[in-house]
């Protein structure tokens, strides 16, 4: 009798201490990017748990809002580590918030898979020794390099396209300025005959503006300079609030370059509806149209819409899903929760992501574990974002040159 009671007690003890794998996410929940990334992460966790979990354990996801404030983002890491006692850190969006989190992350050295922070300053802050740190979002300079590859491919496929004179209008904050810096660095290399833009970029000019998101929104002085310079490719690096006003003002002053490119991290809700949007080229990581050419993207789209009754509106949605799935694949391959095994596994796996690309880890300038290295070149056509490059994900032919303002 005693034996039965004891074994029942042991069974009970084992079951009640059944381990879950705890993942801690820090995201800006008040912003659309953080909100949808959080949703996508919850979706991924739900899918994994319904399929039986990982290594026989269920996943538990804890999400803390960083409120887009550095000290709150940093405190969130401390909270997840010491109160929820998570095993992994995921999430991220803003570079300046991440700068404050980096010293705290270095304190705990838990495996961190980060989908935010494009600024090179963050890479500098992390340093070369952080084996536990995996960065999925392409760094700003990596994005710049990928566009060179993209334009080279495009000018080969469409020989009438040339991009020798480039004008970059950049917002005066950290995001815009580091974009401009990357372009300038690449231009210096191209002048010497080295670097990925050699033979493509022959002249570069830039001018700064105050973004509409921060109380500006008047680009006419910059657009006038661009008009005078008469570039082959005009590109603006700002925020979603700038997307339509900059088009409106370009129309107003009669500036219609052959290639009108926008590179904000997100697009406003009514951009497609606006007749001025047709023909605008954009740099991005993802487009809704990918669901027509990629089964993984389609699965994510359908599942997200079903679960949350809204459409993914930002690349942070599929990226958030990727964040969790990639980590899960790594744990599965490692076969255990051993830190070194997981680090090794994450470095080896290839994950086909709904963002539209295969995720594989390789070193970047300073850190060892960099994920995505490229963005895509897309174009708005009749209210829909279409992928132009990479060609294996292309969903429409390029419209060149930019249609001009007549009749809009």
């Amino acid at each position, binding site marked *: 009798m005693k034996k039965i009671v004891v074994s029942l007690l042991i069974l009970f003890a084992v079951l009640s201490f059944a381990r879950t794998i705890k993942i801690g996410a820090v995201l800006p929940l008040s912003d659309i990017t953080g909100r949808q990334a959080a949703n996508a992460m919850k979706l991924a966790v739900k899918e994994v748990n319904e399929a039986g979990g990982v290594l026989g354990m269920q996943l538990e996801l804890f*999400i803390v809002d960083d409120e887009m404030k550095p000290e709150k983002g940093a405190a969130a890491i401390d909270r997840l580590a*010491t109160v929820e006692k998570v095993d992994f850190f995921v999430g991220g969006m803003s570079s300046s918030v991440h700068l404050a989190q980096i010293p705290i992350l270095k304190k705990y050295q838990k495996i961190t898979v980060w989908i935010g922070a494009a600024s090179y*300053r963050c890479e500098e802050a992390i340093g070369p020794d952080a084996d536990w740190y995996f960065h999925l979002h392409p760094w700003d300079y990596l994005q710049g390099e990928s566009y060179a590859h993209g334009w080279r491919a495009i000018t080969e496929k469409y020989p009438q396209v040339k991009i020798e004179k480039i004008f970059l209008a950049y917002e*005066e904050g950290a995001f815009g300025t580091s974009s401009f810096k990357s372009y300038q660095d690449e231009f210096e290399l191209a002048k010497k005959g080295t670097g990925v833009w050699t033979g493509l970029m022959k002249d570069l000019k830039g001018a700064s503006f105050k973004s509409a998101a921060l109380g500006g929104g008047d680009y006419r002085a910059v657009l006038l300079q661009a008009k005078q310079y008469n570039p082959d490719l005009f590109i603006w690096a700002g925020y979603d609030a700038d997307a339509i006003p900059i088009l409106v003002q370009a129309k107003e002053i009669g500036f219609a370059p052959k290639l009108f490119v926008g590179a904000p991290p997100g697009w406003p809700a009514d951009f497609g509806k606006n007749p001025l949007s047709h023909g605008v080229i954009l740099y991005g990581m993802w487009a809704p149209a990918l669901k027509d050419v990629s089964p993984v993207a389609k699965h994510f789209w359908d599942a997200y819409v079903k679960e949350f009754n809204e459409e993914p509106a930002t690349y942070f949605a599929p990226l958030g899903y990727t964040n969790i799935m990639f980590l899960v694949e790594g744990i599965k391959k490692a076969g255990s929760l051993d830190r070194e095994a997981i680090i090794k596994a994450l470095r080896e796996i290839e994950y086909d992501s709904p963002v539209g690309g295969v995720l594989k880890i390789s070193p970047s300038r300073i850190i060892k574990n960099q994920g995505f290295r490229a963005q895509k070149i897309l174009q708005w056509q009749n209210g829909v974002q279409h992928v132009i490059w990479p060609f294996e994900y292309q969903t429409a032919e390029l419209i060149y040159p930019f249609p001009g303002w007549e009749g809009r």
Partner: protein
Amino acid sequence: MRMRYIFIPAICVLCFVLPFFIDAYLVHVLTSIMIFLSLALSWDMMLRTGQLSFGIAGFFGLGAYASIIAVDDFSVHPMLSILVAAVFAALVAFALGWIVLRLREIYFAITTLALSSVFMIFARNLSDLTGGSAGKVLYESIFGGDPIRTYWLVLSVTLAVILLSEIFQRSRIRFAINSIRDDEISAKCSGVNIFKYLLFAFVLTSAIQGAVGALYAQQYAFVEPESTFSANFLLLPMSMALVGGIYSTIGPIIGALALGLASEYLKLLMPYGHLIIYGLILIVTILFLPRGVYGTITDRMVKKR
């Protein structure tokens, strides 16, 4: 009276040993609260002279930049850089004070706000010195990121600020300051050198703000124009002082603890929309406790007598 001599040192000791009994998260939250508390107190100290300053974020940012540049470019020890930041902020305040302290009321307020923006513009544009829009990062946080040592340092500075605030409240200086606040013209007629006191208060409070900025920058090991000069470092300390009770030392302490803890825990309870509750708390508190928490308590105590 005598209770105070036991009570206060006991609280101080308690504050110092607290980190050993709580988790790193709470230590972090308390460290943040103390930063905002020091700012709130420095704002209140200026307010006691009758001057409404909107410039605290500006001197906070100046101190942060001074501290990071000192450590990065001049190999100053991080702890010493806090002193450097305080002195730098004080010098700037001294120089500007000769012009700015002739202004009163909304004109003083808007000018100090404009100055904060001017500092930010300089930080953003003088890229060679300040790292420009991308900012500057240090390789390491102060004390290698040790949260408890950081907490102790911030606690020490905060206790010093509390002490300064109490000196302002209790020493002979308070007669001059209160008289300036109540009626400048009479004060002048009584022989009070208004400008001297205003300049002193301005320089002292700016030095505090600079030191606190340095603490913040050293803790997170970076500066960046947009986040370092953020309006949060003006609006939150002001709210804390007002909610807790202005013209006092305990008021801002109560306000900082209440609002600081509330904002952190509200967001954990309500991931979406917690800021609405925070705004409502501000509104309701002011409507029903117009003299702040501490002010209302002292009013009640006066009534009881």
